[in-house]
């Protein structure tokens, strides 16, 4: 039996998948926010990297949702 692997997205424990790029993670999390900033293990991932940046197991993904008003 193979042990399951996980990542953390905004502190939610999610089962890791081999093709987990940012776009897929956002979809799995059902995040539809318009304006977000993404950090993986403390490092910024910009929008152009959402399809090409693949997240390793045990990664800590933070999605910061920014909304208008100031």
């Amino acid at each position, binding site marked *: 039996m193979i042990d399951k692997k996980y990542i953390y997205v905004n502190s939610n424990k999610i089962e890791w998948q081999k093709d987990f790029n940012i776009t897929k993670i956002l979809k799995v999390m059902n995040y539809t926010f318009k304006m977000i900033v993404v950090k993986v293990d403390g490092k910024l991932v910009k929008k152009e990297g959402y399809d090409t940046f693949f997240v390793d197991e045990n990664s800590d993904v933070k999605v*910061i949702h920014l909304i*208008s008003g100031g």
Partner: protein
Amino acid sequence: MKKTEFYAKHNSKILSVISKKKIGIIGAGGIGSNAAVSLARAGVGHLVIADFDIIQPSNLNRQYYFLDQIEKPKVFALEKNLKKINPFISYRMINSKINELNLAEFFFDVDLLIEAVDRADQKKMILESWIELYPNKPIVMASGIAGIGGNNMLHTRKIDNIYICGDEKTESDESNLPYAPKVVMVAAMQANLALEILLGAKNDR
């Protein structure tokens, strides 16, 4: 008024720390102008404040300006108002729009940045630029400040060097406008948190 009179009710240990600190504020609207007033009253030594806008009559419902300042550039009007409260600290006002190219030029030497702009795309630009430029320097963001009520929804969230204040829910738009009480509360949360961070408080959140 003497400086010692102004600071008569300040804790000297706290004042000795924060009077040496420099805080940057991007945006001098509802959040920025009110946060600046709190920080000036608290005795932060240096404030660097940027905005490119002029004061409109509709700003007076929540921003720290007065009737006779309409159509004046926000940063210069704010400087006058702040100096009427605390003339004993230094102010640097920047009457320009901040972008990823000039952010470092104006804010490279601040100890902490308060993000106080209106549009979400500008918040994203500022936050991404800050993370890349200064991954260990604190930035205090405002997110979710519109409408009335919902006191208990307001919170602070920390992610590495990023702190977010607001309810993270209420988008400001034509159907959900910003009102003074909540805007001033979030501005005060940001100012209070900024002081706490600069004083090196241990209670991490």
